[in-house]
């Protein structure tokens, strides 16, 4: 047997060392990263049950680890892991739920909720296909309507009118009511520094395009300066159709500096609303209280909720489109505001979720949940490391997304 020491010793050492390593890592705690918990300061714990905070944890001198923090669970992702690719953490919870419930309908559809519309009876998908590698402006509408009860899908494709005019087309929102499908898009015109918002209306039963309305151009230049327009995302939890589309238009003017250089200065923010029923467009100046950061704003019915940072920490301002007035403002002052400690906001099902981007040993991260209708603070709490002694002193947590499980 001694003659076979080579094969025997290599085999034994390999099985022993590799086996021991994997048995140990399977038995050991999932990993060595800190246990983050959500601790309640006030309010109903029920409110954070479905909250998922996604971010990156940095131990001292270590590379960042993706982390998902929930009320009773912390999951560290491994960027280099193959298994992470198979079941990614970053998929929107709504997409995850739809994939689970309507697996074959959701097949081949990307991780983007914008082209989906769902109510009790229907699940609608309307996206613009970006064309193939050969013809990059062969834009077509790809429309699929799933009737949930019968599990029947109606699908059709239609060319985008004047498709060769555009360099790209993104679907921003989809709505459907009484057999009429509305697709709101943002697109850029080729070779022109011009971008447009359109509303395309379709009759689903006849599979025809009814109309194509240009509702806004979102970057315009004139003699004295330029402006850009951002869409405010809308949330339709009840499944009801939104009556309005709203934009924030930022107007900038060219100013001659002292050193002779020309730079742009923001002079005004306008709220542009488009009434989908009457096809009327209206522009109003936003009140001074609203800074008009469109990425933390949401349109629900006739109300626009602006989440913004303020002296006290953060605030939520409700603006009524029809009355053109601020309805209420709710200050989220309890959340700590430190250096480079901005707020992350998310509206989901009539509630606004707010959290600090940043937390470390000295600055705990705060969480708040506010009922949009009433402005009532439903919940306040903190994201904490359970046992800070076990964590390297220079650790940091940087959140980048709030998600709510469905």
């Amino acid at each position, binding site marked *: 047997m001694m003659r076979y020491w080579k*094969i025997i010793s*290599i085999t034994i050492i390999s099985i022993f060392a*590799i086996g021991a390593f994997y048995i140990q890592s399977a038995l050991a705690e999932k*990993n060595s990263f800190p246990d983050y918990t959500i601790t309640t300061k006030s309010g109903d714990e029920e409110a954070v049950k479905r909250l998922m905070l996604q971010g990156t944890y940095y131990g001292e001198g270590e590379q960042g*680890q993706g982390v998902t923090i929930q009320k009773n669970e912390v999951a560290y992702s491994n960027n280099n892991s193959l298994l992470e690719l198979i079941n990614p953490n970053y998929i929107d919870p709504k997409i995850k739920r739809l994939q689970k419930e309507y697996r074959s309908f959701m097949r*081949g559809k990307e991780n983007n909720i914008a082209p989906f519309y769902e109510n009790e009876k229907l699940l609608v998908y309307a996206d613009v296909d970006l064309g*193939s590698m050969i013809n990059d402006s062969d834009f077509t509408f790809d429309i699929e309507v799933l009737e949930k009860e019968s599990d029947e899908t109606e699908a059709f494709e239609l060319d985008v009118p004047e498709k060769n005019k555009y360099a790209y087309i993104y679907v921003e929102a989809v709505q459907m009511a009484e057999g009429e499908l509305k697709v709101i898009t943002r697109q850029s015109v080729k070779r022109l520094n011009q971008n447009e918002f359109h509303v395309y209306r379709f009759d689903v039963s006849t599979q025809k395009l009814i109309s194509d309305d240009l509702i806004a151009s979102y970057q315009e230049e004139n003699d004295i300066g330029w402006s850009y327009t951002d869409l405010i995302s809308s949330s339709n939890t009840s499944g009801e159709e939104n009556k309005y589309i709203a934009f924030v238009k930022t107007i900038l003017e060219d100013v001659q500096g002292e050193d002779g250089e020309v730079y742009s200065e923001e002079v005004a923010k306008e709220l542009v609303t488009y009434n989908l029923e009457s096809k009327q467009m209206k522009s109003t100046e936003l009140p001074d209280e609203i800074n008009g950061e469109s990425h933390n704003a949401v349109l629900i019915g006739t109300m626009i909720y602006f989440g913004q940072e303020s002296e006290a920490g953060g605030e939520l301002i409700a603006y009524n489109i029809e009355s053109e007035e601020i309805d209420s403002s709710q200050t989220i002052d309890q959340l700590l505001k430190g250096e480079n400690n901005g707020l992350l906001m998310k509206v989901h099902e009539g509630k606004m979720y707010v959290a600090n981007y940043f937390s470390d040993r000295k600055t705990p991260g705060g969480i708040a949940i506010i009922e949009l209708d009433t402005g009532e603070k439903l919940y306040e709490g903190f994201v904490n490391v359970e046992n800070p002694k076990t964590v390297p002193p220079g650790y940091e947590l940087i959140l980048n997304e709030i998600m709510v499980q469905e």
Partner: protein
Amino acid sequence: MNRFLKLVNFELGRFMKIYLALIGITIISQIAGVIIKSNSYVERANEAIYEDLIPKEDFFATEGLMSMLHVLRSVWFMGPIALCIAALIFYVFFIWYRDWFGKNTFIYRLLMLPTARIQIFLSKAVSILLMVFGLVAIQLILLPIESVILKWIVPLDYRIDMTVGEIIQNFRELQMLIPSTFIEFVLYYGAGMMAVFIIFTAILFERSFRLKGILFGAIFVGLAVLVFFSPILIMEIMQTYYLYPIEIFILEIILGLVVIGASIWTSHFLLKKKITV
């Protein structure tokens, strides 16, 4: 012991001197790295704190605490690993060509063994796999030893202690060699074996048809890569992502096995019918 295992043992023996030298270099270099890095850190820390009177906190804030990660990033640690990888990649080719070249035409003996010739192919592949596993195992044994040496040299409040798992998790290069779950370990090294099989088959094409065989071998490699990545390629070209990630994953495993099967079958055919001494 059956003939196949004897063949594997024999193949291992033929590379054993270089292999043991590689292990020796790895052990010496990595342990030297730990000692040198640890000593230099302690020296710098003491100089800063006791001579330049920099507060401890400030020193640690700028320099960070000492840990195995400092050692891992040095050439003392990664150098020998890179050397071992290069040596084994070289050996994937050399394990065949050494039998043809030189005065002693050992390939005559191998082909005249009263065993199925595919066993020669498989024994060479298994030898490579075992040598890779052996090196991985040595690294897994070395890491805790190196951690202990670091603890001897660096005082407690100057360092962060890490388990082997933590060290690997925090170092991407090492994580590619030693993934965190056993399933991934099997998948990574399975894919590695697939690559070895494909290269072996290409070598046998060259050995069977010589100049023309280089072309055949290249075509075989191209086909194997194409088949293996076909689901991903098709989806990228069509720009439709029809399959869910889990389905692609399962499909890839199946295709991997198909490619390995095709490689073994082709090699079996070449060794039996086309090989020439």
